[in-house]
């Protein structure tokens, strides 16, 4: 009798009224399952600040993260003859002096200040170089493999071989600051993203294990997070950064720094996940999964962690600026990235002297970029927090 049972043998005499051909009915079910996310989107859209934040983040990641070669007028390490040149002012004049809608920059001349014996750059109102868009310039490889020499803007060097466009000025060795900020953003922003992704994985896994198993495992993981959290940050950074051999290639140093930051910062996320898992694991569906033979790993990763995701997305978003700021701080202290790598922290480190602030203050232009990105992430995170709980108040 036993082997006669089988659910493949559907009894055709079952009189269920609405039997339609087996197959996926598109459209209708999509509407149903998208209810939550459309609510989230609807709520997110209403939050102006969150939209602004999302746009800022999107803009920065596109411009700095993916295509800095295209958006910057010069290459990262192109050294011009203009050492510590001040930003060239924008104007709307043609070289002959008449008005034009096409923006142009004024040229710079070097002068010797006879009192301070300092070489300075002064604006030459006579020399006007119109800015061309999608101009041919220095060759680069887009995304690392597409060869190109088109830049978003720049001076057409065939017409104006003397012309330069240093909108934010140049640094001590004559490199264009705007280009360096765009390139530097790539490392800083991607470090935030990669680091946060690793933190997320570590935090989710350890938090889930800790919350699901409880007992001794929980105690060990929790004491570990406390230990890491209680460690004084800066000395630990110094020790870890000092442990990175100087001979290592810059790219390995970059990833090591990311790992160090992850190591310091996973604890908070792990704790939050643990708390969520502690409450979720008491739900009946865990028991139901167990009673249909699921193992612990499956219950943790398939049934418990997805329930924490909306919360975790928010925490993770709000943690990214911390990651970026840590990189900046560490690099500024000389513990993080070092030249020839260029990140925002490295750029700031180059201006960390009174002389630069006194005589070349435009080099501090990096700071507003950092502030805007951090604010953008915070606005986005706050918006997500409100939106991902569409049934909540407010």
């Amino acid at each position, binding site marked *: 009798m036993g082997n006669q049972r*089988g659910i493949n043998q559907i009894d055709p005499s079952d009189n269920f009224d609405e039997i339609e051909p*087996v197959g996926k009915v598109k459209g209708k079910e999509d509407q149903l399952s998208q209810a939550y996310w459309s609510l989230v989107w609807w709520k997110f859209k209403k939050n102006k600040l969150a939209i602004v934040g999302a746009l800022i983040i999107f803009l920065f990641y596109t411009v700095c993260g993916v295509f800095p070669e295209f958006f910057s007028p010069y290459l990262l390490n192109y050294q011009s003859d203009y050492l510590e040149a001040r930003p060239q002012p924008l104007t709307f004049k043609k070289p002959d002096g008449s008005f034009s809608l096409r923006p142009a920059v004024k040229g710079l001349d070097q002068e010797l200040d006879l009192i301070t014996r300092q070489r300075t750059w002064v604006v030459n109102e006579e020399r006007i170089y119109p800015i061309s868009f999608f101009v041919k310039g220095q060759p680069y490889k887009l995304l690392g493999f597409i060869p190109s020499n088109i830049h978003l803007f720049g001076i057409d060097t065939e017409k104006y071989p003397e012309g330069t466009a240093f909108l934010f000025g140049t640094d001590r060795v004559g490199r264009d600051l705007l280009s360096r900020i765009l390139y530097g953003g790539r490392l800083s922003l991607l470090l935030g993203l990669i680091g946060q992704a690793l933190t997320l994985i570590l935090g989710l896994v350890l938090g889930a294990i800790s919350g699901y198993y409880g007992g001794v495992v929980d105690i060990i993981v929790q004491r570990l997070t406390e230990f890491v959290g209680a460690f004084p940050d800066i000395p630990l950074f110094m020790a870890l950064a000092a442990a990175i051999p100087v001979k290592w290639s810059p790219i390995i140093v970059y990833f090591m720094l990311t790992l160090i930051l992850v190591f310091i910062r996973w604890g908070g996320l792990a704790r939050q996940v643990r708390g969520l898992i502690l409450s979720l694991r008491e739900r009946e569906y865990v028991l139901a999964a167990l009673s249909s033979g699921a*193992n612990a790993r499956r219950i943790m990763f398939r049934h418990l962690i997805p329930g924490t995701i909306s919360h975790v997305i928010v925490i993770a978003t709000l943690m990214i600026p911390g990651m970026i700021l840590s990189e900046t701080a560490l690099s500024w202290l000389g513990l993080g990235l070092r030249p020839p790598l260029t990140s925002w922290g490295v750029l700031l480190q180059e201006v960390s002297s009174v002389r630069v602030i006194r005589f070349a203050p435009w080099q501090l232009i990096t700071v507003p970029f950092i502030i805007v990105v951090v604010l953008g992430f915070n606005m986005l995170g706050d918006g997500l927090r409100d939106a991902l709980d569409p049934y909540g108040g407010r």
Partner: protein
Amino acid sequence: MKQPLVEIKDLNVHFEVRDGTVKAIQGASFDIIRGQTTGIIGESGCGKSITAKAIMQMIPRPGKIVKGEILYHFRDKLNPSQEEIINITELDPDGTRIRKIRGGEIGMIFQEPMSSLTPVYTAGYQIGEALNLHRLVPQKVGDQMDTAIMEYRNVTKQEAREIAIDMLQKVGLPKPHERVDSYPHQLSGGQRQRVMIAIALSCDPVMLIADEPTTALDVSIEAQILDLMRDLQEREDMAIMFITHNLGVVAEMAEDIIVMYMGKQVERASSLKVFYEAKHPYTRALLESIPHVGKRDRARLASIKGMVPSPFELPSGCVFHTRCPSFMPGKCDVIEPTWQEIEEDHWVSCLLYEEV
């Protein structure tokens, strides 16, 4: 022909908590018969659900099986003539063997259909999950002389989806091919319980443990679900262990009824006998406390006097003696009654039926 499927022998489950030891089950012994519905009734906290979880080796911490065995008569679905007896209490709760039994051999459905489905997956996905773990599809890999060589493989995603739709149709969910993509919050309570039943039955279990499956549902849905379970049982020839505190439901469902009190079975008989010739004073008291429609005299509804004793300090002798209307001083509080068959297929543990 009564073939036992699960034999529970002198099962003792203790919970070590801060205030002492709770003896949740003390010496439960009974059989679940193949292809038959066994009802387990008793008031809250008498060990019904713990017994069910013990069969699945799923007793929550800090509970422990301290004594006794649960013998599962395993028959390979592909070769049913051979029987192997597995002692479930000796299996590792996280081991592969017990996980094959959970879901694959013994399905379980719960009291709360509202929270028994993971909210982030569709009904079809959750049925497929069980199928993926337990369902094997025979596959002919070649011929040897005139006998085919068969191998077994796991179901594919597409097959799982089709089986899920079949199952949903089987449990009477309208438009199963649409419902298969529904998330739990899009289903009503009765529909969710149907999905739960579909999950439990999808892997062709030989036994279904239903732990108060209809308590959270309203009466009309309850009737539908009970009908469905009975239908499916007849079709699939599967044993059901039906746990409830609703006497009406159990009368309708079960062929055999086990009455439990304080972690012990006190009476076992066919459901007719339990309802019309109850022997144990506790069973009688339970039956008397059912309100009757049409009984219009002013008499108050009978209730069992006293309170359930504290699980930390169980009464000596018969555990029910503190509340028993037929309490015999000097006997019931001293001597522990034995489990004995007083008529054919009617087991009671009460000193009224013992010569002491």
